């Protein structure tokens, strides 16, 4: 298994995540798509860290995880409260901000 395989896997994961965000209506599923994309990015970072033989990529991957955790905390809170008030977790129902 060469490093290229990791990069290809990362691309595949990212695409799956992106498609999930674009296609699925449920906010939770879209959220999981986002997580998938973040992890695909992490995989790439780690892969490149191995290629260069230093720790920069790994450190950045940690940062991404921290950001993702924070994002999940805020995001889930918003989704839950939207679901409570509107009785739905559909992304298309939550377009009030355009006004």
């Amino acid at each position, binding site marked *: 298994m060469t490093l290229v395989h990791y990069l290809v896997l990362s691309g595949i994961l990212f695409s799956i995540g*992106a498609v999930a965000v*674009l296609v699925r209506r449920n906010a939770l599923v*879209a959220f999981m798509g986002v997580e998938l994309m973040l992890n695909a990015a992490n995989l790439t970072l780690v892969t490149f860290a191995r290629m260069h033989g230093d720790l920069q990529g790994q450190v950045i991957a940690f940062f991404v995880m921290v950001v993702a955790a924070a994002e999940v905390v805020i995001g889930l809170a918003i989704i839950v409260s939207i679901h409570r008030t509107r009785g739905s977790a559909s*992304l*298309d129902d*939550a*377009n009030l901000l*355009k006004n």
Partner: protein
Amino acid sequence: MPLTSLAWLLVAIPLVSAAVLLVGGRRTDAWGHWLGVVAAGAAALLGIGILLELLGQPGEDRIHSIHLFSWIPAGDLSVDAGLLVDPLSMTFVLLITFVGALIHIYSVAYMAHDDSRRRFFAYLNLFVAAMLVLVLADSYALLFVGWEGVGLASYLLIGFWNHRTEYAVAAKKAFVMNRVGDMGLLVAMMLMFASIGAVDFEGVFAAAAGTNEGVLTATGLMLVLAACGKSAQFPLQAWLGDAMAGPTPVSALIHAATMVTAGVYLIVRSAPVFEGAPTAQLVAAIIGAVTLLFGAIVGCAKDDIKKTLAASTMSQIGYMVLAAGLGPIGYAFAIFHLLTHGFFKAGMFLGAGSVMHGMGDEVNMRKFGALRRSMQITWITFGAGWLAILGIPPFSGFWSKDKIIEAAFVGDGWQPWVFGPIALLGAGITAFYMSRLFFMTFHGKARWNDGTDTAGGNVTEDPVQHPHESPALMTVPMIILAVGSVALGGLLAIGDTFTHWLEPVTGHVEHHEPVLPIPLLIAATIALVLLGAFLAWRQYGAAAVPVAPPRGSVLTRAARADLYQDTVNETVFATPGARMTEVLTDADTSVVDGAARGLGTGAVGLGNRWRRLQTGFVRSYASIMVVGVVLAVVVVLATRV
């Protein structure tokens, strides 16, 4: 301290009085008119004091320049405000303040029933102050201040009863036509600054001799245009007749002592400029000659007593402008005629006001007649003015007008043979229309409704008139002016007193022989005057005057319509001007506004398009981002290859 240095008080007194009356408002109603009279009177007394002081000095020392303050220090151009006290300006000062004060006194009674009498006196004072600035100024710039000041005051006074639309329109007309003339003065000042670099009299006159004749001619022509506007000369004379909308004392003030004399003053004052510009001088003389006939012809057909007098003023000022245009030989006589005219015309206007006062504001002479019995003082004082304007010796007008006619016959080539006969003919026509006015008003059969002849089935809708003499406040000024009309001319003409008095300003002029002998000219003038008066007597004194005006000949109808001057102005200037304005307005709304509006609509339309993209659907935003990223990647990869 010499009184001369107090000359600024001449302007300050009436100005402060006007300010007090205008700012004080209704609180000054009770005594405001007396304040106005006192202000005018004080200025007159101060003027007489300065005159006596000047008379005590030898001729050459009678020119005093009084520096007041530095007014416009602007780079190369520095204009100081200063007064010029010399025989010419003092002649005007005395005319303005003395006749002005008499008119003020008269107005106390004439305007007694007007609610806004106080405001009226404020404007009168303002008028006097502005006119004094005009004649006392030592530079064209300060003169212009007075020039505009009298324009404003005349606008306020002509439109004094502006609750009547046509009066307000008359005031506006006077104002606008005056502005046309004012452009002349402005351009003249610009030319002076451009060519000489100064606008004060001293600097301009000193440099005038060495200045290019073309520039001087242009300056002179512009000054003549300015004079045309203020002095109601052809072709800017149409406002004068309409100016009769103001109360009668205003007409007396405008016509006799202030406003319309300003043009003559300007030309005589600018003598050194005109010396270097014979063409401009000739134009002034031609305009004077044209106006003198124009006014006289119009005067023959008017039935409104005040409009006849207005036409007469136009014609008499025409004489003065003609004299001023004749050059040095005419300057002194122009001013002399202006002075005597000031007295007899003011007297006649006040007389006309007295007649209107007695006849319930009726101005149609066809409804007067036989007023001499009920208004004897008015009859006698008006008679003095009438004989004076006719030029019957030894009344004032004879001494001044005759000199102008003589001067018109002086010269070379065609000029004396054109100007002379016109001046002579003008005297005859003047005699005709003034006698017509006099006989129609005071002689013949009474044509007003005295309440007795209704028995003959002659039912008239006019109210019953009770003509009566005016109160002493009105008659006394008229008597004083009548005395001036009788005696002033002879007093100043004997021994050429007045000409010598003006010599420091107008220069000494050797006697010139007219192309015809002087006794013949005097005889011809008097013969023509008597003929004119006789014709008027036969038609309007002895014969019955129809109350309804007859249709009249073509000339009469033209004269009634001011020789169609309004129509000409309307067609040549007003209508094309209005059309141009319309076109410009349309261009403004369609092109300029259109462009601005178009930009706005375009931005709004674009915004509406863009707004559609703001769906609020998170997933569509995300797709756009993905598409964007993919495109960016494609572009980057493609450019790398």
